[in-house]
């Protein structure tokens, strides 16, 4: 793979990050939201489905993981597993209803159903309602590796991120991924060729939901608390922002987008306070108007070599 040396370089940088003095909690947050954005991109970039309620999976999984770790005392791996399973189940439920429609109607259904999930999280006893879940223990991996140290946890999260990234690449480059591409390019033709289009879309939806859930579970363990913001509309909006800013048709785009948004939020809010949102919003508008492929997409277009079988289609 031509991209391999470049990815390797990035990986080395990530491995060296704590030594470079980067605040581990911030780096983990970046990986977490980067994962969330990559999962979201599986739907937007490769299947052209814009989901407006993806935070439902992120948040629901975070709550379940948090609850399993606190009230049930489950270890890290088991708690994460429980969260991801919840996200997958939710993805199946919501997906089954949503994939039957396209475009704006699909987006509206995901919006409505994510509001229902929000409501459930607000009212259910175990989530703590407006107060959220606090003091979620990080626990240990298989009773051996203690995750309480920030640096240890960072490498754990990094490992999971790399695995997820490779998984997404694998999915996109697989025969299944090719069918998804066909559906995106011309759905009626795919149907006429005999593909069960809705089944393929549903699978993509469930995969995306599960990976988003994984990101949420990690967030619960990293920061130690889960609140309604994780499952709310603003979080759904933020992941859309990150993915599009970074570049929805690329692999690294969502990660870069997450990095840019989180860094801007962190850096700007200390200096300009509430104007941070304005600057981020203006950047987004500029992105939609002029650099529609996102940061990574545009750079790839200008400087990257054209690949014969491009994984990403340029936006219309």
């Amino acid at each position, binding site marked *: 793979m031509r991209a391999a040396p470049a990815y390797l370089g*990035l990986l080395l940088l990530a491995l060296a990050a704590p030594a470079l003095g980067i*605040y581990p909690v911030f780096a983990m947050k970046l990986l977490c939201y980067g994962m969330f954005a990559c999962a979201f991109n599986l739907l937007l970039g490769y299947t052209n489905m814009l989901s407006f309620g993806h935070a439902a999976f992120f948040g629901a999984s975070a709550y379940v993981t948090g609850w399993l770790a606190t009230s049930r005392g489950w270890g890290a791996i088991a708690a994460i597993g429980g969260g991801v399973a919840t996200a997958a189940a939710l993805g199946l439920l919501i997906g089954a209803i949503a994939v039957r429609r396209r475009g704006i109607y699909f987006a509206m259904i995901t919006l409505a159903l994510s509001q229902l999930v929000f409501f459930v999280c607000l009212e259910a006893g175990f989530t703590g*309602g407006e*107060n*959220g879940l606090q003091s979620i223990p990080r626990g240990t991996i298989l009773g051996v590796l203690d995750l309480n140290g920030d640096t240890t946890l960072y490498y754990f999260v990094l490992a999971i991120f790399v695995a997820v990234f490779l998984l997404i690449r694998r999915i996109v480059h697989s025969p299944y991924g090719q069918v998804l591409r066909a559906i995106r390019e011309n759905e009626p033709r795919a149907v006429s060729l005999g593909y069960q289009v809705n089944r393929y879309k549903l699978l993509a939806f469930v995969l995306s939901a599960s990976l988003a859930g994984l990101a949420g579970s990690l967030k619960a363990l990293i*920061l130690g608390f889960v609140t309604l913001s994780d499952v709310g509309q603003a979080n759904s909006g933020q992941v859309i922002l990150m993915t599009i800013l970074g570049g929805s048709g690329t692999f690294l785009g969502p990660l870069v987008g997450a*990095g840019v948004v989180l860094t801007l939020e962190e850096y700007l809010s200390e200096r300009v306070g509430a104007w941070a949102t304005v600057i981020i919003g203006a950047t987004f508008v500029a992105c939609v108007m002029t650099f529609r492929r996102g940061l*990574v997409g545009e750079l790839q277009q200008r400087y990257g070599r054209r690949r014969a079988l491009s994984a990403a289609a340029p936006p219309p």
Partner: protein
Amino acid sequence: MQKSILTALCAVLACAATSPARAADGQVVIGDIDDLSGVYADVAGQGAIEAANMAIADFGGTVLGRKIVLLTTDHQNKPDIGASKFREWADQSGLNMLLGGSNTGVSIAMSKVAGAKKIPFFAIGAGGASLTGADCTPYTVHYAYDTTALGNGTASAIVKNGGKTWFFLTADYAFGTQLQESATRVVNANGGKVQGAVRVPLGAADFSSFLLQAQSSGAQVLGLANAGTDFVNSMKAANEFGITSAMKPAALLAFIADIHSLGLATTQGLYLTTGWYWDLNEETRAFGRRYFAKMNKMPTMDQAGYYSATMQYLNAVKAAGSTDPDGVMAQLRKTKINDAFTKGGYVRADGVMVHTMYVMQVKTPAESKYPWDYYKLIKAMPGEEAYGSQPDATCPFLKR
């Protein structure tokens, strides 16, 4: 592809650049995480920052030869932001003490961080009594007031004056629920009855439908278990819808800023409990006037509390000879608090700063003789009566 790597690299380096500066060792860092722009902004907010700065200046700007630095941020009533910022300051900026809260939910989240990172945390403005109960830590000091004192003060005064049946309008988070519980206990203990309650989201725009529910309950008293702009709005709406002609409003938590905002015509006769009032004695008046000169309004009990807490912390550091958290906490627990905020106050084992609480009634427009002359003193409750004579039994670390 290479350029996208470059972008990612830049993003990562930018992260490194934004990591907050490592604290210089020669500083004492005090943090303030509060609601600077939302429902509680007038009650503490910028005024509290000013009060803390006044204390630092009065103390002399340095302690033990180290410069005192104040970091501030807005938690926007989100526990995520409050807890994350606290942790970040603790990890990266060498934070020695945190002031803050106003919002009970955020303060509970922050107190967990205080316990984990062992940093003294003065919870001011947040009412929830669980901060010194189920959520207590050895490093939390609950200043100014709490929901127990409010219940014992206001609810008890109203029930004794004939308000037997109650309906609560409760802010739907830790503070509202705990305030409702505390008031309910007092109502029941005094022979009253709670007809019902309705939960209202924090910062709700329109109270009309909740007030209608209150009205249809037929209760005598409308218990407002909320604060800040929520309290102001629910009072206004209650007047608009004519609810106040049938039900008596009970301001379970009201600050002088709220009374000023609503005006005496709307609020006259309201009972409320406060930990401090600017017009109590010469010392409080002096502080009030100093604050007024800078902010053009009289300080609320929270803002006065910020001044006092900062002072007390700095005094404790000086007396203990270091910023070591355990040493400072031990020193704080030994000292009697005698300043413009209160006389004879002390920090109890569970973290409550026990001090005199005052049950006040809002004056009528005719009774008010000069600007900000709003309260008349009904009863001065000694600390033990307001907060209970024993530390909270539900506090985990006391059980050891």
